[in-house]
């Protein structure tokens, strides 16, 4: 095992993620956070809004207990056109959101727990963001589709 925080992944993250991945777009996203006692990753919220911007704003507006910008993880169900009449595809992208202004202890914990959560969930693609501009819809589309759409 490589160096990591040892923070555990609450079972509910994994079971809800499974349901999410089978929900065929009913749930569009899930957001995860570090529990207040810093011992595990838990579900923060999930939603079905179709508008990506609603999700992006929610993610980027996360705050810590002192009201400062706070890191989060998220998964988003990206739908894209394959083109050439081949129809639509869905891919789940994992996002780590660690804004530079966030508390340094939280930055450290989120960075060193990322791999553990990503492995537990097993999404198709992943992306890291420390500025809101890093997860423009086109970028996320491009990463999720493996370069077949977006950008």
């Amino acid at each position, binding site marked *: *095992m490589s160096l990591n925080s040892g923070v555990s992944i609450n079972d509910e993250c994994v079971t809800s993620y499974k349901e999410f991945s089978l929900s065929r777009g009913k749930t569009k996203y899930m957001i995860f956070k570090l529990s207040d006692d810093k011992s595990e990753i838990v579900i923060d919220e999930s939603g079905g809004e179709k508008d990506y911007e609603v999700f992006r704003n929610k993610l980027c507006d996360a705050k810590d207990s002192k009201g400062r910008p706070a890191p989060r993880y998220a998964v988003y169900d990206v739908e894209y056109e394959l083109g050439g009449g081949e129809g639509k595809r869905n891919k789940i992208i994992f996002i780590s959101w660690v804004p530079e202004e966030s508390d340094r202890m939280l930055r450290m914990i989120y960075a060193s727990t990322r791999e553990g959560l990503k492995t537990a969930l097993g999404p198709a693609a992943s992306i890291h963001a420390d500025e809101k501009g*890093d997860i423009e819809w086109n970028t996320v589309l491009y990463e999720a589709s493996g370069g077949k759409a977006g950008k």
Partner: protein
Amino acid sequence: MNPSIPPSTAEYGGDEVSAIVLDPGFSTVRAGFAGEDTPKSLIPSYYGKYTYEGEEKIIFGDDIYVTPRPGLSIHNPMGRDGIVEDWDMAEKVWEYSFTSRLTGSKPGNPLQNGLNDALPDGELPTEMEGIEAEEKPLADSPLLMTESGWNPSKAREKTIEIAMENWGSPAFYLGRNGVLAAFASGKASALVIDVGASNISVTPVHDGMILKRGVQHSPLGGDYISSQIRALFKANSPQPITITPHYLISSKTSVDAGQPPQAVYKTFAPEKAPHESYRALLEERTLSEFKECVVQVWPGPNRLTATGPNGIPNEEIARSSPGRPFEFPDGYNQVFGVERYRVVESLFDAKAHIPDSESPFPAPTPAQTLPELIKSALNGVDVDIRPHLLANVVVTGASSLLYGFTDRLNQELLQNFPSPRVRISAPGNTTERRFGSWVGASILASLGSFHQMWISKKEYEEHGPSIVDKRCK
């Protein structure tokens, strides 16, 4: 302290005890309690050796600077490549870093510590057998240590052996500097550029693991820059500059810029003089100050020797910016102009090296410069992850605090890797830049959840030192 109040558990072991974080570099050793913001103990990695009344004496910590003892010589247990050469002395220097400021020295064997001197002659204390030999210095403290990305297995095994057997640590972990610095910037994937004292290194980290095939390092660190400054001083006009450390000066009067120093010097008879390595150590302090106050990296775009798009040579532009003054310990002072850029240019452009036949540093090869190290590092990793690394360049190490360093790095990256997103994250906070991996390690080791990462004494006893390679990937 009130003797009627029982000592807190923190002092006597038990769950409350903090882990110790130890980050040994080539120039300094950083040690402190996990959970603290900065390392409480910062000591030189160097130690001093001299003979007194026929007996060899060794000194550690800041004491090495203080007294120019006859024959005092200065040594470093670490090799220039960042790997330990002298294990016995490395152990002693590191041990000093925590016993001097953190753990204190443990009570020794009462037969030797003088506590039993009052016993009448010939009468030995009755229960000698029951008395433990000297308690080990880390008997109560888990220890998280850091290492370079190219530390070989043998060295890693030796390290855990010292921690477990000689220091008696109940738990141990060894973390790579690059990974810790990436994590401390909030990133699990990053290209970590560490500009230290004896090395510059480029470490690709992906999903929290170093990508060994991409790790690159070269000797163009802070000490090399010091050697370039020395070369500059020798060729200086109106006159060559000699660095005379304070211990060789009894008095000085102030002089105008560029005028010869007016100082009264101390001399030592040959048998009273410290070794030349002592002088070199003290000169290095002045050089370090010079780096902080005067030296500047040409910010780019393009090399210092290049000519800008408008036909004006970059050197010309550099010359027109106001110079920076510096005063030496003997009172000599001067304003440094364009030459303050030249002493670091060879980190980016091997041809800019200032030759000096007496320097222990050979002229760098192009492959050793930072832009080339970065290219090699990226060539050593999968094409798919290169853009992610370039978007997450993390800068750490005290020499990266050189004025203008990150601006130039940014220009070099943009020129060499025209990618839609190149981004450098360099903490503006100098503590985090100087102690990046210590700070990261301090947070990790303070987490309750980290307990499952530790290699316990029991596991060590079962599997031996090779467990470090299995557990600390």
